């Protein structure tokens, strides 16, 4: 079983595909769940506190907007954990979105420069493309130890 990060890192469709193939999908939703279920913090809606943008300094400098650093405090650790990645280009907002394009760019960069196997895909626009899309993901995941 490999730990596979998906991009967009909020994509439940990709999460499902990875988990079905017996691997561990790394998605930001889990990091959010950990925060919102933590006791003793009351910073709605996500329980992100001003400490998170400071933790994000590990991934981006202080002159990078706080919203990017705050997001990176959640996404950065799962990139570090990842052993493989699936990146879907132009996924559309329904597939999942961090809400911030600068964060998306940084996430893609950090995944690509990590030196792990990466599957690059375009988002399917019809049924035939969707079948090929799923097949490519399956083949990629089967090739992972």
């Amino acid at each position, binding site marked *: 079983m490999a730990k596979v990060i998906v991009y967009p890192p909020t994509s439940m469709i990709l999460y499902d595909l990875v988990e079905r193939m017996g691997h561990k999908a790394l998605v930001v939703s889990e990091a959010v769940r950990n925060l919102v279920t933590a006791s003793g913090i009351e910073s709605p809606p996500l329980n992100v506190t001003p400490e998170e943008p400071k933790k994000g300094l590990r991934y981006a400098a202080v002159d*990078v907007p706080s919203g990017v650093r705050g997001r990176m405090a959640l996404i950065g650790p799962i990139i570090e954990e990842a052993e493989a990645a699936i990146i879907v280009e132009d996924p559309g907002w329904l597939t999942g979105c961090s809400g911030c394009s600068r964060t998306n760019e940084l996430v893609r960069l950090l995944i690509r420069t990590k030196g792990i196997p990466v599957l690059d895909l375009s988002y399917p626009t019809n049924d035939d493309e969707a079948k090929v899309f799923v097949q490519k993901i399956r083949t990629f995941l089967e090739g992972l130890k």
Partner: protein
Amino acid sequence: MIRIAQLSCGSEYSGIQKEIDRAAETVGAKIIYPEVSLEDILNVENTFGVSVSSGDLNLAMARAVRIVQNPDLADAVIVMTCFRCAEAAIIRSEIRKFIHEHSKIPVLSYSFTERTTAETLLTRMEALVTTVKYRGLLAREKQTGLTAGIDSGSTTTKSVVMRDNEVIGTGWVPTNEVLKSAEDALQAAMKNANVAKDDIAAIGVTGYGRFLVGKHINARLIQEEITVNSKGAVFLADAQKGNATVIDIGGMDNKAISVQDGIPGGFTMGGICAGASGRFLELTAKRLGVDITELGKLALQGDYKNVAMNSYCIVFGTQSLVNSLALGCKPEDVAMAACHSVAEQVYEQQLQEVEVKEPVIMVGGTSLIEGLPKAMEELLHVKVTVPKYAQYIGAVGAALLVSGLLED
């Protein structure tokens, strides 16, 4: 309950959403998020005029469209995005303009960091709520009876006594002990007006020390300086009808307010950098060995272009001025360079966030430093008005507004 619609990107991931909610709650308002459909977001290019790659900014634009289409959804709007995000800065400004042009809903825009707290937002939020809650009072154009106003500022405390629409006494003291300075300023104004405290029907208080001073003297009106100053400015400049822009460069912060019929429509408030405040001019005057009241006249004789200013920072900017003097620059050029530096910072950082419409009225003690309004005129290419009693603007606004409460 005043409903403030929040159109933002990044606030929850910056960890400041709780602070925004807390500031709103403190001023008796609640934050709301206008509902939009996915279709609204996908169509934002058609309805708003542009879509961008960041999803949350498209969501904010779709919400702006929804508010314009349904103005009953919100009483006021706050547009907030991350500091230092170029994409967000463009969209934040466009959202503000869009709402300003298509509705009468007051808008506040702000760029935040993770260090933004409820206290940072409080004055801004209070002003936003006031423009909604006391619209009738703010529309008031005349002062009646005998009232007084106190502006408890960060550097100086000002007071005026007004009778039947005229300023009849003024007082101005440095702010040392907040309460004592307020009492001294009021005493000076009363003495100048030749009236006793018991004769004064009501007192209004504004400025940084407003809560402390207002409680101590049992003020009838305790109000933030944005609404009060804009009221005082258009009153003194005789510009109560139509558009106006008020620029108030204070001792510790500065404000740019877009005013419509005497009521703030949009405003920004700076306070991060002392280089854009009166403090920088004080330091310059001290370094040049002239009194602050003489700095402006000296500056009028100078040319800022003869001085190389390498920084807006109060420390490094002063260093540039000192270096220039050492290189043989004239004191008048240095004085004008300091004025130009402050004006340019306000122009670059504050005035891009409001609609600059004539007349442009400069107020506050710094407006009396003649080089500053001149520098602002050169940057804006419009005539800048400095009304009589410009340094008492907050106190005048407070005395004017509190007289309205007596009639209600």
